[in-house]
């Protein structure tokens, strides 16, 4: 029998029981839609985060911290996560690092949580002490002024603020602006009794909006003061991390400099490359994607069992028909292919509708997620950070979903189809 005739015959059988076929297909639609929606949102989220991290990270940088490495920070003030080994990085350690081969420059960063006060209002933010000139050099695309100017030789009371300090509510109601006087209040917990230290300075620049988050890169949520001021304000020579700018971002350079830095500090420091962090994030997302796809796949498996169930019922109803077909000279493999074709049609229709529905669902969810829903614009949680998620339907997800829908349908139809093909004509004709 020609393939077209097999499909035509299979289609006529499906058409006869429209409601049943529709419900069977619906199972596949739901499974595929769930897979497509979850994966395309997750892919979109990953792309958004990766782009934002790449912007904030600069791939030719290393982050030197003490102890066991970096926790995954959100906002400029990420969790440090370093175990306290008694060793501390000093601001002057940049000199040691600067002397290493392939190192272009290094920037020490002191970072503390603080209150930022302007008039009667206050915000909880991070105060970051850096060398403005060097920091701008490392993060030339993000440490950039939207208004005012970043001073290369800052005066003592200079302050640079991130966009979400100037306009924290995203509604043009400014908390402070260039030339305003702001107070940074930090609680010195080591003093007895704990004491609030206040640093008052004039805003000389507001950074342009960066969005997203980064590790020790410029952030919309930080207030920047000169490193020398931070030293006296926080009463310390210690820094939290040192950002190292390399001559290039070759893997070999990253590895050799990382080793050299670790050696220079007797193994007391951890060196994290931006690319390594991106790799970790990518790996985390892969795991999350597999997890999400797994959950969605379960619904598809349920759909598969539905297909099997329906086909077994259909087989019983059509036993006599199979007997007739065999009496007319149809071979077992043709009977098998007719039943499998029915599964192929259901699987393909289900997958096609499922992909379309999943894509629509992903866009709706992404819009809610990005545009004022539970992680809305007014929510100042660092993770939202003005992030817009655009669902991404990659060819792999598209073809994978199509193939998966098809394969699940066919696999679950194999047993009933095989049983149909093995029916003996004389017994099938006698079936009532």
């Amino acid at each position, binding site marked *: 029998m020609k393939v077209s005739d097999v499909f035509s*015959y299979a289609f006529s059988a499906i058409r006869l029981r429209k409601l049943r076929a529709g419900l069977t297909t619906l199972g596949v639609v739901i499974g595929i839609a769930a897979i497509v929606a979850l994966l395309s949102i997750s892919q979109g989220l990953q792309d958004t985060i990766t782009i934002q991290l790449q912007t904030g990270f600069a791939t030719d940088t290393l982050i030197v911290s003490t102890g066991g490495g970096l926790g995954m920070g959100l906002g400029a003030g990420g969790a440090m996560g370093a175990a306290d080994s008694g060793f501390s990085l000093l601001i002057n350690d940049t000199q040691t690092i600067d002397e290493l081969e392939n190192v272009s420059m290094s920037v020490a960063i002191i970072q503390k949580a603080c209150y930022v006060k302007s008039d009667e209002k206050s915000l909880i933010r991070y105060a970051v002490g850096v060398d403005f000139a060097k920091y701008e050099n490392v993060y030339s695309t993000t440490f950039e002024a939207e208004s005012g100017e970043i001073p290369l030789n800052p005066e003592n009371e200079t302050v640079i603020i991130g966009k979400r300090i100037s306009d924290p509510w995203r509604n043009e109601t400014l908390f402070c602006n260039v030339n305003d006087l702001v107070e940074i209040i930090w609680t010195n917990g080591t003093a007895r009794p704990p004491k609030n230290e206040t640093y008052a300075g004039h805003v000389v620049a507001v950074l342009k909006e960066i969005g997203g988050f980064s590790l020790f890169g410029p952030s919309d949520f930080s207030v920047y003061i000169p490193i020398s001021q931070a030293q006296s304000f926080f009463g310390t020579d210690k820094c939290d991390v040192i950002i190292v700018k390399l001559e290039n971002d070759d893997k070999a350079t990253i590895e050799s400099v990382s080793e050299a830095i670790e050696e220079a500090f007797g193994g007391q420091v951890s060196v994290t490359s931006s690319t390594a962090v991106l790799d970790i994030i990518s790996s985390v997302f892969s795991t999350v994607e597999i997890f999400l796809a797994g959950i969605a796949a379960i619904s598809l498996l349920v759909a598969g069992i539905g297909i099997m169930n329906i086909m077994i019922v259909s087989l019983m109803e059509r036993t006599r028909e199979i007997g*007739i077909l065999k009496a*007319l*000279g149809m*071979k*077992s493999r*043709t009977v098998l292919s007719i039943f499998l074709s029915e599964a192929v049609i259901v699987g393909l229709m289900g997958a096609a509708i499922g992909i379309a529905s999943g894509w629509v669902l992903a866009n709706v969810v992404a819009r809610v997620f990005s545009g004022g829903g539970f992680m809305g614009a007014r929510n100042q949680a660092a993770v939202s950070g003005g992030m817009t998620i655009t669902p991404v339907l990659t060819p792999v997800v598209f073809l994978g979903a199509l193939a998966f829908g098809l394969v699940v349908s066919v696999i679950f139809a194999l047993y009933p189809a095989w049983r149909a093909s093995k029916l003996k004509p004389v017994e099938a004709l006698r079936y009532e």
Partner: protein
Amino acid sequence: MRTRVVETTNLKKTYMLGKVQVDALRGVDLTVEKGDFLAILGPSGSGKSTLLNMIGALDKPTEGKVFIEGVDVSKLNDNALADLRREIGFVFQFFNLIPRLTARGNVELPMAIPGLGKTERRKRAEELLETVGLKERVNHKPAELSGGERQRVAIARALANNPKFLLMDEPTGNIDSKTANEIIELVRRLNEEKGVTIIVVTHDQQIALQTKRAVQMLDGLIFEEKVNQHESK
């Protein structure tokens, strides 16, 4: 010498009905030649339908042989049996049409199985339906046809692949007597005018009288064979 289309030798069939062993056929020897019109008669349980299934390659014998045009059916595998069945035309008591297909679709089906082109099989299906007097009913589904019309469709379908012979199992068993007469007449004409070899299992003495030959079965054996008079005319 006339060609032997069907030959059975010492044909036996035993099957289990629950825990009871049933000897449906107990050694049947039968020969059918080309152009023959044979009636197999007998009461229920005499083994006539079982014999029909063996001759139609729908079932395999427990013992003995069935030859179709000299080919030993018991030596054929499933695929070869399917190929053989394509060359046999079946007509069943309950029509056994595919309900969702039209009359034409049902007649086309056996031609689609070996892969005949759509145009060709459509043309032949219409010709066959015209032969059985259903030219105007080609697009009707079985549910829209009377019992007699359905049986005509079944006969047209049986003729679709130019079979070596027609096997008819109680072809008038499910239709009224007037329509049954029309069907008998149609079958007789097919045999006389087109030379189609026909084996018919029936209770219907009317059909038996129209055939060239009749065998009577009882308890899985042929006990009487009769040549009808009109053939000797």
